[in-house]
């Protein structure tokens, strides 16, 4: 892949196809990453020509699904950035625990690792029974995987270390049952998770939440789209609710920033009205 087979013009053509044919709008995505992923898929699937590749995406529903799954980044892990989850455990969730009911929106949940992480913390804080986690993603395929609550056994050592550094004190392996190469997480953990499709680009606010998490999703969007999505979060967040973003993402420079106060040391903002 010295000179990529996919050009900037090809990317533009595919993006307008996706919008016209399927209503998926990727035009506000950062181009360099998108182009890399499209080129990667083009090589991986040994496409004969761009014309054939394009036709297949337009004509073959199953291939279109694969295309969307492959061009979006679905890499995630449990308790990624342990200090972030420690702040949730020790500061944010105990405060929300004084409410009669806790509604959480995990936007861009991918295969669900963060949803189960939050569920574990809520259970340990005895808050799970009065909580509801809406875990959404634009991609139905990753949601199906998320709902199975099965993750690779090979990841468990890392996740267990993350869990402990985030302040977890239980035996992490008590949360799953090992079955060959997979760890199946206890059903109790997903009882309060609703997995559902939601496209941050085109779908509207669907509820009011006390906590919205959207980590490492905004990095794939251009500035305009980032601002629109932050508006969407603002309109979906109650006063005194919390908004959590990824390590390199920020509310600063956006229209909503005057209303938000950052918690020291973490990418978590509180809506102060």
């Amino acid at each position, binding site marked *: 892949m010295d000179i990529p087979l996919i050009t900037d013009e090809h990317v533009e053509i595919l993006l307008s196809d996706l919008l016209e044919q399927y209503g998926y709008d990727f035009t506000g995505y950062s181009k360099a990453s998108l182009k890399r992923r499209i080129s990667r898929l083009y090589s991986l699937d040994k496409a004969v020509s761009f014309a054939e590749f394009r036709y297949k995406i337009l004509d073959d529903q199953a291939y279109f699904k694969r295309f969307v799954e492959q061009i979006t980044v679905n890499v995630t892990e449990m308790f990624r950035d342990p200090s972030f989850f420690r702040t949730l455990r020790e500061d944010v969730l105990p405060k929300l625990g004084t409410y009669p009911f806790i509604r959480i929106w995990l936007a861009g949940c991918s295969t669900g690792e963060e949803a189960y992480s939050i569920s574990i913390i809520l259970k340990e804080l005895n808050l799970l029974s009065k909580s509801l986690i809406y875990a959404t993603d634009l991609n139905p395929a990753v949601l199906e995987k998320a709902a199975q609550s099965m993750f690779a056994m090979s990841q468990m050592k890392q996740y267990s270390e993350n869990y402990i550094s985030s302040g977890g004190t239980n035996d992490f392996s008590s949360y799953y049952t090992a079955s060959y190469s997979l760890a199946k997480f206890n059903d109790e953990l997903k009882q309060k998770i609703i997995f559902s499709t939601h496209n941050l680009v085109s779908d509207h606010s669907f509820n009011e939440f006390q906590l919205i998490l959207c980590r490492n999703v905004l*990095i794939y969007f251009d500035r305009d789209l980032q601002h629109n999505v932050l508006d969407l979060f603002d309109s979906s967040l109650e006063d005194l609710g919390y908004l959590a973003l990824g390590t*390199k993402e920020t509310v600063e420079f956006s229209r909503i920033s005057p209303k938000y106060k950052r918690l020291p040391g973490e990418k978590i903002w509180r809506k102060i009205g």
Partner: protein
Amino acid sequence: MEEDWLMKKCKAFIIGGSAGSLDVLLKVLPNVDVNISFPIIIVVHRKHGADSLLPVLLSTRTKLIVKEVDEKEKIVAGTVYIAPSDYHLLIEQDETFSLDYSEKINYSRPAIDVTYQTAAEVYKTKLACLLLSGSNSDGVNGLKSVKAWGGMALIQDPDSAQVAYMPEQAKLNVKIDHVLPIEAMAEFINLLS
């Protein structure tokens, strides 16, 4: 010195490195001209969580502004940018940075290949990329792209590298423009300005 020995009007200089590259950076940066006419972008493999130490460390050695990249940041000449740990660093056509948390490449995130490849398509013949000491082959495919788009491929002299594997792999697989000993690097960078 031959006329076409150096590129005219370099627009970006990217340094990639892994094991054994920090010492090189610490030796080279103090001697890079403060009035340099292009940005220097540094992508080194490091452990996730060791954040923000590297920019602090490097900024003690130079008068140039040294900063960790913020996503969507405009790339400005005369600044030394450090790729954040645990993200791939990409260059957009409008000469801004973007970040990506996709799969590791060559067991690495950031992967040098990703930055070299995306930069090659943006800066084309006005790009110079230097690959330093390291123990895997990250950066080699990136240098191929740099050459394919007409840019300049540079490596640390493997004899001077703490771990020679990375520059050696580049030498074996890519038509390298210049092999630089550590002592010559800063002057070379200054001459491109």
